[in-house]
């Protein structure tokens, strides 16, 4: 099964050449690389905004940029990072590349739709970028009414339309994945033989398909209300601004799980491979993904405890919120238990996985704090919340994304990344991240509100620490960008299965041929069965 053939084979990268062959491709692997290029651009753009924000906050008075500019900076940082980086990140790049490979299919069910999704994302991105170049938008990524509909003087409609459009990219991607996972699995690949990454992508797709339309229609209503001066949410005309918040968070809370669930899938893969053990409690980990996807829709009101939502509704939302913590805790414990009596090696992806588990644990635990009603009243809209969601989105999703990128880089490009540099950058990212965001927990509990351009002096200590951490973090992200590009040309040629992993994606060449597999694979074993690899090596 493990092909060690040295002959130069036709790969998806060399099958065709030229710009047209990329821009009109229907190959899920090439589309994945298109996404990779696009979201890397958006990530560094959003990162630049973050850098300026952190520099501004180095000193208490707002002296580096004007308050209007500062407001645009954090809005664009949020909009770009959430809608154009985090949501497409793992599903659209790694998911696109891996879903057909992992289930032994030739492609996704709807390749044209897949390409269309990328163009739709680009169209949305262009709207947001155009709004940015024209003067930006200053509503915060949450677009709370009536500020966004009646008071902001910036490019709200254009940005809102951009988000509306990117939403459809996300919906179509999720739809494609669900159909593919249901209909295109290789013979013998039953649901409980699927890699856990597929389970998590499946759960993510459910949220994308059922949640995203609500944010789309909400942004549409905001644009219509602003454009035609209607009164849908405007309290001056009898509308209810809190209703907007319900619709917004109905999607935007589950959206957090769109970001972090695929990351959890990656961690399951990585932890298993580098400890050479089956994932402990496979069924629990698999079902916990679906449980998170479903329960995630029941808890949005915990963003609105002080928003004048009724006390009774707050009680219900708080109670339900604690239920989401259970499947999350199950995952963390199962990953830890997987290490027990394993054979653990410390390649870069495993370092990122350790980082993920640690940071996600802190992010998750502080999440339960925020679900506790009284506590939330004090810290909501402060830096405590900022720290919490960065622990989930950056400490969780981004660490997993980077871990996954390293892990599958040989498969995607046919080249190895430089291990030494990669380990160094993983360490730098971990330290930089904690230095940036841990002080924000303390600052938040002390009462530092978020989205403040200038702040009282007593918070400066923490802001200085945070800015120092951010500069370390920036270096940590630049190193991989450099060596990944370097490796495309100078990296060692990757074997088909450099990590001795058991998944189907490792049983084809690196990089894979255009049709993925020469012969449709037949699956006879559960996922993460390393004994077969050992037998083959010995025998």
């Amino acid at each position: 099964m493990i092909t060690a053939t040295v002959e130069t084979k036709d790969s998806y990268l060399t099958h065709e050449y030229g710009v047209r062959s990329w821009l009109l491709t229907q190959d899920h692997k090439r589309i994945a690389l298109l996404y990779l290029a696009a979201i890397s651009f958006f990530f560094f753009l959003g990162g630049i905004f973050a850098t300026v924000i952190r520099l501004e906050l180095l000193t208490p008075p707002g002296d580096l940029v004007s308050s209007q500019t500062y407001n645009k900076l954090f809005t664009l940082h949020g909009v770009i990072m959430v809608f154009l980086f985090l949501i497409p990140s793992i599903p659209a790049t790694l998911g696109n590349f891996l879903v057909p490979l992992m289930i032994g299919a030739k492609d996704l069910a709807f390749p044209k739709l897949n390409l269309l999704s990328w163009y739709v994302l680009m169209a949305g991105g262009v709207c947001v970028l155009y709004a940015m170049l024209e003067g930006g938008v200053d509503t915060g990524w949450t677009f709370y009414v009536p500020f966004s509909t009646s008071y902001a003087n910036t490019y709200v409609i254009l940005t809102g339309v951009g988000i509306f459009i990117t939403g459809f990219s996300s919906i179509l991607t999720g739809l494609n994945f669900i159909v593919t996972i249901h209909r295109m699995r290789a013979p013998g690949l039953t649901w409980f033989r699927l890699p856990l990454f597929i389970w998590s992508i499946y759960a993510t797709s459910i949220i994308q398909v059922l949640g995203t339309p609500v944010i789309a229609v909400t942004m549409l209503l905001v644009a219509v209300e602003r454009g035609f001066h209607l009164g849908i949410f405007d309290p001056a005309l009898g509308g209810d601004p809190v209703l907007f918040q319900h619709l917004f968070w109905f999607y935007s809370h589950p959206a957090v799980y769109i970001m972090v669930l695929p990351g959890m899938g990656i961690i399951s893969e990585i932890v298993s491979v580098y400890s050479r053990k089956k994932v402990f409690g496979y069924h629990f980990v698999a079902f916990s993904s679906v449980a998170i996807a479903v329960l995630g829709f029941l808890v949005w009101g915990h963003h609105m405890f002080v928003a004048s939502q009724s006390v009774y509704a707050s009680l219900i939302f708080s109670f339900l919120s604690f239920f989401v913590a259970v499947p999350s805790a199950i995952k963390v414990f199962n990953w830890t238990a997987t290490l027990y009596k394993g054979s653990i090696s410390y390649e870069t992806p495993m370092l990122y996985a350790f980082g993920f588990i640690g940071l996600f644990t802190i992010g998750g635990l502080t999440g339960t704090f925020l679900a506790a009603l009284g506590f939330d009243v004090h810290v909501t809209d402060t830096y405590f919340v900022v720290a919490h969601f960065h622990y989930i989105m950056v400490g969780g999703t981004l660490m997993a994304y980077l871990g996954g990128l390293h892990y599958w880089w040989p498969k995607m490009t046919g080249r190895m990344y430089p291990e030494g540099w990669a380990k160094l950058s993983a360490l730098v990212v971990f330290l930089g991240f904690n230095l940036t965001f841990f002080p924000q927990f303390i600052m938040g509990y002390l009462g530092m509100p978020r989205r403040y351009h200038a702040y009282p002096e007593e918070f400066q200590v923490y802001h200085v620490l945070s800015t120092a951490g951010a500069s370390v973090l920036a270096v940590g992200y630049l190193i991989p960008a450099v060596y990944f590009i370097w490796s495309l040309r100078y990296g060692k040629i990757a074997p088909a299965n450099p990590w001795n992993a058991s998944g189907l994606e490792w049983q084809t060449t690196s990089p894979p041929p255009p049709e993925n597999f020469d012969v449709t694979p037949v699956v006879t074993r559960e996922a993460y069965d390393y004994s077969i690899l050992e037998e083959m090596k010995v025998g």
Partner: protein
Amino acid sequence: MANHSLALRHQFDDVEQQKDASTLGMWLFLATEVLFFGGMFCCYTVYRSAYPAAFGQASNHLNLILGAVSTAILIISSFTMACAVNSAATGAKNALVAFLSLTILFAAAFLVIEMSEWRMLYQEGLMPGFNFTYKEIDPAHVQLFFCMYFSMTGLHASHVTIGIVILTVMAIRAWRGAFSPAYYTPIEISGLYWHFVDLVWIFLFPLYYLIARHLQG
């Protein structure tokens, strides 16, 4: 057999798998659409429960007969669409083209009626954002009713328009003989889309034209 193997795309193993995938894809898309309209239905429900009297007041400015007629027309178009699917399945090409054309015709008739109702409301000064001059009881919340009315019927009308485009493409393909009893999935999933458009109206009609009429303060 040669006919439909041409229609088989490379990523699928057989026609059955391809058909299943397309149908499932369409149903998932419709689930998305339910939530897409759902956001607006949610706004409607909240505001109607908050301001029943104003909603009753405003509802009386809609033309019940026009609403009922357009409902009937959409149901007829749904029926002709169902017949089109049946014709495709039995290989009756001419009947298929005829039923698709009828569906398009009824869809267009629906739009014409809807536009005339919009025009009347505009002239009555009941179109928020363009011409809203209503000054009787509780104008703010009557305005809210019409905001929701135009948003929802507008979104629905855009779906009808997209439906007309899709069905036109299907009619042309059918006329050219693209479909056979072995391969008519595109007709079937366009049909699903069209019935969904009808479904939305089945709820819009009572919500706007019927249930608030007698609730005026």
